[in-house]
């Protein structure tokens, strides 16, 4: 009744090609953006911003990066953590060694460096597919772990191997309060989401999806697998590198290579799988599931007044979280984004389903 396209006519190609074609969708996204940009800053306290929303937004960006590669181009990667690390350390070294560059340009160049390394490790994808490719990208992860632990130049010869990000100064605007950091991350997340959404609707995104659905057929209709696959690796690594920069500079402030270990790659992979492969919305939903849910589970017993030992809570958190992952994958193998889509279909028929 509420969510229905009846009576909404599209009279131009531009309208027909819009991302959000339904009036209800447009209102919905406007409300969400208003809440994110104005509502949350007015209501949220420091804990919510710094411990939950900022990591959630940054990992959403990372999940979008991986989703472009895995969900849209069908190339499995276990090296997202590595590309994040490359972005983070590239930005750190650029800020340290070329202080003349503005920070925003550092971030951009760091993304490009991550993209270049991504292309390099994407080369095996031209020959191998599926799980074998996953193993090949694992090499990227181990290479990054090794390089940042063993090559002291990358960490500026600090004895402990832990490096500290410089102050976030964007042309005189120093980002230091939680709220400013939140807005910065939100800006990056919105920008990435719009770019990614438009990219996958464009020629290049369609070529990725053709490769994903059937690479031989795609090749026959004139799509060059090399360009398509390597561009997917490049864009994905660029976005992941950007997420790495944010994770290091905005969220952690000081970090060691362990922050971008294989655990990070797996977490991002789970986000994409649980959120929904081939969906930008799914990247956000997956990131919320993986980052916010464990923290919520950890605090839930205390909030409802049940006193449990810290160890018990922590073990329960692992068990419930694991069970939920399994359950979600059984209920809806296509992820949370698909659930949302089903919900929308139901809403169209509500209240008279047939």
């Amino acid at each position, binding site marked *: 009744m509420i969510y229905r396209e009846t009576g909404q006519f599209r009279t131009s190609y531009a309208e027909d090609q819009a991302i959000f074609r339904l009036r209800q969708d447009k209102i919905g996204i406007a409300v969400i953006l208003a809440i994110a940009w104005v509502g949350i800053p007015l*209501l*949220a*306290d*420091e*804990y*919510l911003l*710094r*411990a*939950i929303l900022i*990591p959630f937004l940054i990992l959403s960006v990372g999940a979008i990066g991986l989703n472009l590669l895995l969900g849209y181009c069908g190339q499995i990667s276990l090296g997202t953590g590595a590309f994040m690390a490359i972005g983070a350390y590239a930005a750190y070294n650029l800020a340290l060694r070329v202080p003349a560059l503005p920070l925003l340009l550092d971030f951009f160049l760091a993304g490009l460096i991550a993209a270049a390394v991504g292309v390099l490790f994407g080369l095996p994808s031209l020959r191998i597919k599926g799980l074998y490719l996953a193993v090949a990208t694992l090499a990227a992860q181990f290479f990054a772990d090794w390089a940042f*632990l063993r090559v002291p130049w990358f960490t500026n010869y600090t*004895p*402990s*191997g*832990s490096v*500290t990000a*410089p*102050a976030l100064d964007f042309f005189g605007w120093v980002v*230091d309060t939680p709220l400013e950091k939140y807005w910065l991350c939100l800006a990056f997340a919105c920008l990435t989401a719009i770019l990614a959404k438009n990219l996958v609707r464009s020629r290049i995104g369609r070529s990725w999806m053709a490769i994903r659905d059937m690479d031989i057929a795609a090749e026959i209709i004139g799509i060059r697998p090399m360009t398509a696959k390597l561009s997917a690796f490049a864009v994905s690594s660029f976005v992941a590198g950007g997420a790495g920069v944010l994770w290091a500079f905005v*969220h*952690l*402030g*000081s*970090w*060691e290579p*362990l*922050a971008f*270990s294989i655990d990070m790659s797996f977490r991002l992979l789970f986000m994409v799988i649980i959120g929904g492969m081939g969906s930008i919305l799914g990247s956000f939903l997956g990131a919320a599931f993986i980052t*916010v849910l464990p*923290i*919520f589970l*950890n*605090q*839930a017993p205390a*909030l409802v007044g049940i006193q449990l*030992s*810290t*160890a018990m*809570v*922590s*073990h329960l*958190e*692992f068990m419930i979280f694991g069970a939920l992952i399994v359950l979600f994958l059984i209920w809806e193998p296509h992820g949370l984004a698909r*659930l949302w889509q*089903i*919900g929308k279909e*139901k809403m169209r028929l509500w209240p008279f389903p047939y």
Partner: protein
Amino acid sequence: MRFQLRASILAGGAAIALLSAQPPAVAESIFYPHLVYRSGAYAPNGIPFANGVADYVAMINARDGGVGGVKIELEECETGYATDRGVECYERLKTKGPGAIAFSPLSTGITFALTEKVPIDKIPLQTMGYGRSESADGRVFQWNFPLLGTYWSAADILIQHVAKVSGGLKGKKITLVYHDSPYGKEPIPVLQDHAQKHGYIFEAIPVTHPGVEQKAAWLKIRQTRPDFVFLWGWGVMNSTAIKEAVAVGYPRNQMYGVWWAAAEPDVRPAGEDAKGYQGLALHPAGADYPVHKDILKYVYDAGKGAGKREEVGEVLYNRGVIDAMLKLEAVRTAQKLTGKKVVNGADVRLGYENLELTAERIKELGFEGLVTPLKVSCRDHEGARKARIHQWDGQKWVFVSDWIEADTSYLRPKVEAAAAAYAKEKNITPATCP
């Protein structure tokens, strides 16, 4: 499906509402946040430490009604030794009650991350026997308190000891087997410096987290046959290292662990084979000190103990007790200095800087023999830098050396240089000390 959707939306809304809800401030109590790890690869070492802290605080609440007449409210938060969860815990606990008094993350990685945050939030960071070594310079690291000794002090003490027992280190080989993280890397600069001074051959072998795979490291040790192996491990890495040493036939009495690699959970899994293994001791083990009697009387007899009764007095348990005692002494000093009963982080920092434990005070607290006197100052946030060597005899730890003090004349300039470099990088103006 519709029901599920609605339920999940409701659950999500409730989650956000609950997460943002703040409990009302409790009057007349101070808030003691405690970052612990009772699960994961480091739990065998994290649990006794956490129990020590919890029991000591419970004892003070039961015996004295808190510190300075104010109840202490302790809340634990599980970090699992992971930096991002540690940061989340810190954010969660820092504003609770009248504000957190101080944090002790028991993880070098979390310490590094929090070092950036505590000056802004004005909460001291007590890192007893760990943390950034250069944070001993209180002029730059105004909010860090690496009490009782840093890793640089630890490395210096170990070298002093082995130089003494082997009668000179010229031409000797020393190998460091370290946890490949900021924690394990901390002692390397000092060990390298000493290698030049004493003329020994130094080699460092990293072990990746969590440290259950060390075959390669120990095969290398079998080849090179170093005179001494220093172990800078934590959690399962320590017991694995001792087992691997047995496997390659490396004598345990030539192995020395740092104080985090010389406790019961490290040697017990290796059984009889661990006999002879030595390590640094910040303090003795054992439960026959007056403070333990009070803990057993007020906490365990009341059935409120955090752990098992027989685990009271283990090395890491005692370290937890000392950690809590130092923090509460800083609170007491802060109460005295500010005249306030309920103190916050900024007050407690003042308390730390003026913290002085005299022999009489230690006796009063029931810690005689457990800790040595210490005096923290604006310039020196370490307070004391002494340790003894103890050896595992198969049943218990036995001291094999007297207290050894780290060489300040060598370490202090090094600390100041590193701190100055940090200050320059972060644009910090060092405080002027009287």
